[in-house]
């Protein structure tokens, strides 16, 4: 006999549930995909998803969902949307929230919560998610009334995507989502009296900056990710060419200025180019647009840009003077500032002597490596060159953190904006592969290559199920040195080669692992194999795992050792 049980998930009335209103509100913001993972506290939300047929990507871990949302946000400029359940579902998001917070990526994250009447009782799968995520979000809040959902969702998207972008977390008690809601005119009026940001810079500060540029003899433009967030890459190029400004990029700013442009000196910082770091060290005017002067960029602050007047353009006023005190602070959006600067008719002289001087540094101290002979062990830097040669300028490249990340930043010439997806500030292992999933979903026609280390890949490789399930043609290039490369490199350099737990005794057979998900895999161990394999697999419309066996003891050079100034590079 069939017994029908009436449950909260099957309301008799035609009233909508809070979850229905939630999904409608999310869709109203233009959301085309949600990354998530179901669980008890979000069952009403998933029931609404089932009814409303929204595109939902089921990752195999909540961390995978949030990194995928980050990848989606980074390449599309649109907010990534995530749903996870209460307790462990929510706490599994913490790394991704912090990663998005420090790298200024717009995310709107919805977490389930136990029902309102049991909050604070240590109920099953209860966690104080608001308390836990205050330091790792731009803003977070719990919804206390289902009728508030349209407004609260609108506010969440507004905060995430305006000013300095960042992650916003919305905690949803189960009873709020299950509650019946009368279909009334939705209240979506934003009421945030304390939230403000200023896109338009002060004309006076822009004028000061313009005059400084016109009179500087040795200026340098430092291009940060703020340029990409402001969609201002086109203007930076025009501005740099107009004033003959040599350009140094931060790690996250790569692609905001074409790498092949004659004014480009490369990435600055710990593993930057000699020319870029010397330009910062010797310049008389440093124009930072959209970078937060991270310690990996500046090296020893006391020795940073010692001869320069510093101009700092940032949309976040709290960044101004946090690490480096600027002579010319400009609070505003990079695009608005550049538009104002370009409206001025003044033009700078060519500064040929300064450009020639920096050009000499670039020619005499280029990035270099030995590719080795055809049958010799593969140089990791060579893998990056092969990927670039066959994936092309329009490809999107994602990485984790560590040696493979630095080699990619050094040797992959990013000529276009929003093709580079990496974990910058937080340095998150396991970021690159799920981020590639989000990037591929945002840009289905583009080639997406995820360059990862063998260590980081093992942190989120369960997401292979997603690319198999959705047949996403992501190409996973494992820089397999059978080591936690950057840890090993630092142990070699600063701990007398005591390789404590950085060279694991075993690792899986990545090819068979890929095959177990129905994904093809290939191993590349020599130059000759790399030349043969990369053109074939990077053009194939299927996902691939390419296990590149690279030199274990290769080091990322040149380097600014901790505590040293940018002009004290080793390995140049």
């Amino acid at each position, binding site marked *: 006999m069939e017994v029908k049980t009436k449950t909260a998930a099957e309301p008799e009335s035609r009233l909508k549930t809070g979850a229905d209103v939630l999904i409608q509100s999310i869709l109203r913001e233009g959301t085309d995909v949600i990354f998530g993972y179901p669980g008890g506290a979000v069952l009403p939300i998933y029931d609404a998803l089932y009814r409303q047929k929204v595109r939902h990507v089921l990752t195999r871990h909540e961390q995978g969902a949030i990194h995928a949302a980050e990848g989606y946000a980074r390449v599309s400029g649109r907010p990534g949307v995530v749903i996870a359940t209460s307790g462990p579902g929510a706490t599994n998001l913490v790394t991704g929230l912090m990663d998005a917070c420090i790298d200024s990526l717009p995310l709107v994250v919805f977490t389930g919560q136990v029902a309102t009447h049991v909050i604070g009782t240590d109920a099953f799968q209860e966690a104080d998610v608001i308390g836990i995520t205050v330091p790792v979000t731009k803003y977070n809040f719990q919804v206390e009334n289902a009728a508030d959902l349209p407004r609260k969702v609108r506010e969440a998207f507004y905060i995430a995507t305006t000013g300095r972008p960042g992650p916003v977390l919305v905690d949803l008690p189960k009873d709020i989502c299950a509650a019946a809601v009368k279909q009334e005119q939705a209240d979506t009026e934003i009421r945030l009296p304390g939230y403000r940001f200023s896109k338009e810079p002060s004309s006076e500060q822009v004028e000061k900056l313009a005059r400084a540029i016109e009179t500087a003899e040795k200026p340098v433009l430092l291009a940060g990710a703020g340029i990409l967030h402001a969609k201002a890459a086109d203007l930076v190029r025009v501005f740099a060419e107009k004033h003959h400004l040599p350009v140094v990029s931060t790690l996250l700013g790569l692609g905001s200025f074409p790498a092949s442009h004659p004014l480009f000196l490369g990435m600055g910082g710990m593993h930057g180019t000699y020319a870029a770091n010397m330009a910062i060290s010797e310049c008389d005017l440093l124009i930072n647009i959209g970078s937060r002067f991270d310690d990996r960029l500046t090296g020893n602050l006391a020795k940073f840009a010692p001869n320069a007047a510093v101009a700092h353009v940032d949309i976040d006023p*709290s960044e101004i003077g*946090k690490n480096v005190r600027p002579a010319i602070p400009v609070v505003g959006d990079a695009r608005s500032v550049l538009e104002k600067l370009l409206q001025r008719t003044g033009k700078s002289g060519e500064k040929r002597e300064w450009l020639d001087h920096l050009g000499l540094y670039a020619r005499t101290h280029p990035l270099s490596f030995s590719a080795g002979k055809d049958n010799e062990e593969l140089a990791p830097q060579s893998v990056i060159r092969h990927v670039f040669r066959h994936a092309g300028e329009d490809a999107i490249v994602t990485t984790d953190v560590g040696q493979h990340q630095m080699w990619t930043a050094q040797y992959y010439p990013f000529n276009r904006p929003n093709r580079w997806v990496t974990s910058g500030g937080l340095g998150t292992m396991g970021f690159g592969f799920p981020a590639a999933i989000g990037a591929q979903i945002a840009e289905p026609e583009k080639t997406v290559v995820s360059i990862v280390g063998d260590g980081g890949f093992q942190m989120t490789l369960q997401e292979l199920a997603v690319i198999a399930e959705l047949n996403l043609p992501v190409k996973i290039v494992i820089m397999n040195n059978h080591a936690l490369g950057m840890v090993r490199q630092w142990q070699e350099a600063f701990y007398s080669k005591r390789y404590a737990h950085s060279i694991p005794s075993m690792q899986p057979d990545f090819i068979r692992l890929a095959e177990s998900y129905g994904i093809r895999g290939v191993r590349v161990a020599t130059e000759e194999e790399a030349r043969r394999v990369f053109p074939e697999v990077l053009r194939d419309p299927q996902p691939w795992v390419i296990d590149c066996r690279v030199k274990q003891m290769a080091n990322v050079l040149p380097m600014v050792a901790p505590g040293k100034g940018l002009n004290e590079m080793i390995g140049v």
Partner: protein
Amino acid sequence: MKRTVHALVSGEDSALFRVTAVFSRQKLNIASLTFKRSGGTNGTSDMKIVTDVENERQARQLIGQLNKLVDVISAADISELPDCDKEKECVAPEINPGC
């Protein structure tokens, strides 16, 4: 150096926690803290916090971080105000008739 900070915050319950979290993140001790609901329909609250900072730069950083909070409507360093005016920032006039 002793600094007195005033913040006008929205009525969200978590505002107190968010504000004090900025101090703890910067390793700043709170010597005293007053939190008072303004009682108006807009549900704002006044906070007055006395702390010790190392230098002016840290004080500026603190105010910048507080103003960045979504729940903070305004934050200011009121250390240079006369004591009487400092109290006005946080105490209702009727119970502070001397000012």
